[in-house]
């Protein structure tokens, strides 16, 4: 990793630094506790980069892990806010030069460390965050091409950690699947596997997040390749599989430990859900059903959560294929990107709940009733 010049200066001055998860941590910062004892803590600053250039810490927010920093008499320093503590980051610090933000991380670290360790020096003159030589360590590789500075700036690291890791599969990259990808790509999972065998055509653009340009259709590129290209700008580890999953290639799902099933063919849905249930892979199945009326389109937006462990459940009936072709108007007459986005958002919300990101009881099956503007749940159990 290329090191920012401001961080190079900190390193040359002897600081002990860690770069990880869109944060810069300065270790061994001496500070005075309420008991007027000198201890060492860690200063954490947001670290965001755009185009390879590190952005200066904009608003003077930083965090401190350790005892509450105090003056030499044991009175809490005025820029310390222990009432705002974030898991993993520590207590909030709010300090910046008058009437402006910091120029760079060197100025920010210098100002914050001086303010924290100055009282410590009045008790122990040799106390300093600087050693000889300076050190820098880098954390585990990020799943993102650039860091989310809001994670450190707003102290949300611990919540994001609940979604960290694992391989998520998205089966079917139509309207709903593409919106699922849009949301999952903003989470720190390790890998996102995409399964679809269709080409990306103009009608797909009208049910896909973002705005495709006309020249994207000229080469008849596969949906999975197009979406992998777009979202790899942000998230690493996106793996396209140009394949229509059926009974002969379900082994492709062996690489995922969670799957969103967003296909539009009931027979494929039946086969894929059956395969995932046999492998005991937890999954969420999405589906929209529309019908016409004089008042407009009516119908349901369904989300079905299959927890780990496989086996039969009451909602497994949805995995059975219909006995006759669908007369659903969706396929022929309506673009409903809003319902695709809603289905995807409900599915991703349920997945995040299953990972402990959102609270509440695990959900089984639920549906949005379009004409009732209502979200209804199946009974638990």
């Amino acid at each position, binding site marked *: 990793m290329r090191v920012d010049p401001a961080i190079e200066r900190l390193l040359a001055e002897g600081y002990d630094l860690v770069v990880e998860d869109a944060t810069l941590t300065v270790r061994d910062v001496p500070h005075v506790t309420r008991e007027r004892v000198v201890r060492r803590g860690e200063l954490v600053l947001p670290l965001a980069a755009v185009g390879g250039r590190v952005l200066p810490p904009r608003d003077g927010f930083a965090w401190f892990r350790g005892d509450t920093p105090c003056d030499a008499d044991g009175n809490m320093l005025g820029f310390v806010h222990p009432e705002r503590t974030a898991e993993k980051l520590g207590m909030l610090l709010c300090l910046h030069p008058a009437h402006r933000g910091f120029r760079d991380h060197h100025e920010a670290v210098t100002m914050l460390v001086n303010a924290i360790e100055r009282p410590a020096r009045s008790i122990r003159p040799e106390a300093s965050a600087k050693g000889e030589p300076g050190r820098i360590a880098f954390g585990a590789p990020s799943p993102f091409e650039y860091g989310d500075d809001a994670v450190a700036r707003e102290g949300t690291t611990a919540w994001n950690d609940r979604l960290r890791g694992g391989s998520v599969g998205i089966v079917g990259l139509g309207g709903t699947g593409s919106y699922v990808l849009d949301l999952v790509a903003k989470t720190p999972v390790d890998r996102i596997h995409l399964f679809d065998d269709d080409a990306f055509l103009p009608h797909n653009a009208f049910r896909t997040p973002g705005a495709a340009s006309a020249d994207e259709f000229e080469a008849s590129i596969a949906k999975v390749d197009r979406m992998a290209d777009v979202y790899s700008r942000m998230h690493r580890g996106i793996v396209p599989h140009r394949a229509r999953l059926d009974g002969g290639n379900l082994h492709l799902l062996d690489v995922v430990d969670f799957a969103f099933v967003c296909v539009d063919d009931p027979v494929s849905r039946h086969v894929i859900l059956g395969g995932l249930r046999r492998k005991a892979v937890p999954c969420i199945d999405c589906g929209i059903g*529309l019908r016409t009326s004089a008042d407009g389109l009516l119908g*349901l937006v369904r989300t079905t959560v299959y927890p780990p462990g496989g086996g039969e459940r009451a909602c497994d*009936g949805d995995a059975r294929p219909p006995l006759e072709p669908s007369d*659903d108007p969706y396929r022929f007459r309506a673009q409903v990107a809003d319902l695709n986005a809603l289905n995807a958002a409900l599915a991703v919300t349920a997945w995040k709940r299953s990972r402990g990101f959102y609270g509440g009881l695990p959900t089984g*099956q639920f549906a949005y009733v379009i*004409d009732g503007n209502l979200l*209804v749940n199946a009974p638990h159990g």
Partner: protein
Amino acid sequence: MAITTNTTERTIDPTAPGYAAAAPDAAVVPDTAVGGSAQATRSIVVNGVRHVVHGDRITFEGVVGLADGRGTRSDGHTVAFTRGPVEAPEGLLMPGHGTVLVEDQVFHATATHEG
């Protein structure tokens, strides 16, 4: 809600599959029996069409039967209801399960396979 304005009405045979007697202990429970109390009559709305049904309960399969007019196909459907009994005024029905019927209860039944 405008969905109740469609006036196609059907009177349902209480002995047809999908209609079961009311369960005393819960509004939504698994149904293993069919049949019902012929004396009870309810007017309900399924996919915007009003139906007159006899009996105290209706099952997932019974709702799908009313929705598609053929009364047999239910696999792959999702069935939701609103304006239901006080114990469960709204919810989803699972295959093999049913709900207590109340007057003017509204059902939505459709295959939900599109992505």
